């Protein structure tokens, strides 16, 4: 058994009585629900460039967020001091929105629990990996990437870890904690040939132990992939412009789902009826080849959590089943106001931000097609296998995602690599044009970070090879 990390209140220098008192201050007559979120986070980063690991950064943050909700209103305060007085000030602010007299009766905590599962067990916590071991890993990467091709002129790599201890106490009497490790190894290569410079990036990670990066020589794979992409881009031609069929490779291209439908299915936008999906529950929003889920329960994944940041166990939620829109992802506030199931998607960046409905790992289930047949089915189009970021306008549904490795398909064959190009489409429409779904579902390597309302949280995506019959490709070759 791994050693049980300390998720007790003592870690935060608090007693249960103090927590009950703070909940009592905030839980006044008009308040429906309130919670305290305690967090302590240790972040460490080492980075390398020009063959030297010369940068090391470590940061410690600790604090509490206090939230009260009354109807649709949320009062929120946070403090990086954890004294009884600071909690009281925060609780007073949070209950301000309820505009009712101060309560003084402590709220009993009736149910104290550890999460019922451990999705990220580790023999050695990631926080206890020595700096020297981190440094060695980066040094190995430099050598590997340069060995790939002499045209690789610079290699940059960083290894970041986070070790977060959280505890949630709620006015419905629950107190539950979790320890959430997270790490990411990222490699960037610059290739140069006759004055033409190109970049390639690759990386991976999740909530696993440090040994993951050495297993199956993963770090070498990351280094080689970054180098390969940079070298490939040396010969890339201008990307096409206009509407055409696009084949997406498996794994990270699942960012399509995250942007095109994931954000639009977050409950807050739908409660406010400001999402392009607000009136589409039970309606066909994708071809019947598409079944899409959000699943926070996959072991060791970057987007997974034992419990969300409101203390609700994460779950697997079917968003789209054979093309039909089935459900939204929810946090407590929106599930309560909308009268729909709580899915365990209430997430926050830190104690300094309020929980919002957010995705975990969002992916499409495998279909029946052979990926080679999918490519062969396209006469002229684009085959995109790697992407940078994406973005969506929730209200009109328009979304983009930008390819960083893509090829022309000519007469059913993959031919030349093309320069990066942004793809743009409409969320409620694009998946209706998915005519083939491969049997090769792949989850991404574990590098995704999602932004919403200024808050970043780690997420995952996944996709089998799919064919989209038409989408606008934003190259320069029009």
């Amino acid at each position, binding site marked *: 058994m791994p050693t049980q990390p300390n998720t007790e209140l003592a870690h935060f220098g608090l007693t249960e009585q103090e927590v009950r008192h703070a909940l009592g201050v905030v839980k006044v007559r008009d308040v429906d629900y309130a919670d305290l979120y305690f967090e302590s986070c240790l972040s460490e980063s080492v980075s390398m460039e020009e063959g030297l690991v*010369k940068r090391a950064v470590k940061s410690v943050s600790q604090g509490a967020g206090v939230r009260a909700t009354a109807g649709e*209103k949320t009062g929120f305060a946070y403090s990086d001091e954890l004294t009884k007085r600071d909690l009281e000030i925060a609780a007073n602010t949070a209950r*301000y929105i309820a505009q009712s007299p101060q309560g003084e009766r402590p709220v009993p905590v009736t149910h104290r629990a550890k999460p019922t599962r451990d999705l990220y067990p580790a023999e050695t916590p990631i926080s206890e990996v020595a700096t020297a071991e981190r*440094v060695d890993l980066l040094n190995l990467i430099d050598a590997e990437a340069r060995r790939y091709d002499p045209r690789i002129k610079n290699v940059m790599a960083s290894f970041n870890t986070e070790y977060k201890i959280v505890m949630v106490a709620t006015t419905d009497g629950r107190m539950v904690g979790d320890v959430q490790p997270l790490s990411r190894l990222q490699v960037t290569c610059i290739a140069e040939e006759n004055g033409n410079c190109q970049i390639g990036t690759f990386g991976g990670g999740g909530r696993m132990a440090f040994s993951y990066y050495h297993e199956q020589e993963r770090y070498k794979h990351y280094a080689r992939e970054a180098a390969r992409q940079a070298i490939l881009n040396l010969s890339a031609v201008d990307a096409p412009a206009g509407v055409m069929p696009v084949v997406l490779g498996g794994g990270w291209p699942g960012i399509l789902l995250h942007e095109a439908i994931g954000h639009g299915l977050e409950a807050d936008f739908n409660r406010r009826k400001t999402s392009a999906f607000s009136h589409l529950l039970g309606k066909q929003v994708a071809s019947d080849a598409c079944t899409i889920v959000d699943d926070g329960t996959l072991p060791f994944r970057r987007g997974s959590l034992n419990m969300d940041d409101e203390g609700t166990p994460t779950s697997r939620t079917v968003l789209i089943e054979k093309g039909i829109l089935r459900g939204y992802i929810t946090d407590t506030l929106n599930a309560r106001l909308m009268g729909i199931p709580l899915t365990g998607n209430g997430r926050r960046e830190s104690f300094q931000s309020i929980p919002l409905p957010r995705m975990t790992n969002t992916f499409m289930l495998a279909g029946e097609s052979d990926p080679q047949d999918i490519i062969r089915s396209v006469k002229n189009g684009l085959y995109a296998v790697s992407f940078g970021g994406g973005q969506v306008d929730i209200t009109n549904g328009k979304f983009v995602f930008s390819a960083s490795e893509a090829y022309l398909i000519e007469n059913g064959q993959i031919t030349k690599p093309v320069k990066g190009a942004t793809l743009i489409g409409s969320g409620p429409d694009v998946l209706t044009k998915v005519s083939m779904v491969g049997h090769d579902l792949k989850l991404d390597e574990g590098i995704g970070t999602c932004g919403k309302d200024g808050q970043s949280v780690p997420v995952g995506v996944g996709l089998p090879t799919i064919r989209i019959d038409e989408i606008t490709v934003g190259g320069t070759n*029009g």
Partner: protein
Amino acid sequence: MSGALPAVQDYSQLAHDLLGRAKQRGATEADVMVMDGRNLSVQVRLSAVDRLTKAREKRLGLRVFFGKRSASTSTSDFSHSSLDQLVADTCSLAQAVVEDPVSGLPAKEALGQDRPDLDLYDATEIGTDEHITLAKRAEAAALGADPRVSNSEGADFNSSDGHVLLANSHGFVGDYRSSSFSMSVSPVATDPSTGGMQRDSWYAIQRAYARLDSPESVGSEAARRTLRRLGARKVSTCKAPVIFDQEMAGSLLGNLCGALSGYALYKGTSFLTGQMGHKIAPESVTVYDDGRMPRGFGSRPFDGEGLPTRKTPVIERGVLKSYLLDTYSGKKLGLASTGNASRSVGESPSAGPTNFYLVPGAVPPADIIRSVTRGLYVTELIGFGINMVTGDYSRGAAGFWIENGELAYPVEEITIAGNLKRMFLDIDMVGSDLEFRGRIASPTIKIGEMTIAGN
């Protein structure tokens, strides 16, 4: 700001103690940065309070050097035992990395002596109820502007103030206070014929409360921007001139800042590598970085290393005159710092803009639109389709199609693509309408030709 939160404090003694403790542990040089801030934010939606957030936060960062080895750490826990641990951790971390020949603090004589008052701080305290009232007024102006404004993602009003202190082992100690007041409104409008929805937003932000636009003007501008998007459609794929409005031209200038950062240049990740002294834009383009603009959002009396800030000509009449450098990236390029060390607490410095702007030209924006027979006026860009190494540019866009010098109809679900290097050379008009709503600002500009992908 209302009473419950304690005011920001003076941390110079604390910084002094930490520098002493680092020295005792063998550090040859060190610097300490302390940030302390308060904020109050209210969001209303459909005339009711949706969210109220109040906070006080502080953070301390320590950077130490052991000869040419260095490391940085930070914490929000200022207790004696925690800071002792921080010093110990930082010192051992620094000894775990390799020597970097160019690392180190700036030379003692170069550090900032003068402390100009840049008018960055306004002590006006706005109460919680007043925040609510101001946000409600702004949203009401948007909701009342037109019956097609059917919904709202809310309006917010925020106030914050903060204090930054930097001290180093050369004896530099500097600090400044700053404040910020802002509001924004995000209305949703529905097209009565199709049921299609559009959302847009508008905002105002100032260092001084009294300078802020009225909530009514922010709300009605937000409504105007949202309503004009109704009925948007795609256009056919083509090559055409593209006009960037103030905000979008500002985003292009932001890309320019990224390419001019000393770190991107010495790493070879900038499309402007090797362009110093070259013509990178037409004569009409002059760009300044001014760290001492009164009330500027990027203004500060000294930079993230304690060097004096200044006004730097970056591009003069189209010719690249200066990069944005801190001491480290400057040394890597064989150049002196330009006083552009930007720094978040607990990180080593990087190089970035202070107040970075394109000097306005003589042409009013309406005349720029009038100069286009057939082209695009861009008011929104989404996505991250920019390759900073090559300058290749491809982003999602929305705006208006121009026919014979007039905005003909709104467009969406299109992309614009080109290459930043060529786009800057291809700026053929610079507007007269410079306004600062952030640290990077630009008047309207027109780019001769880009590829527009649509139907």
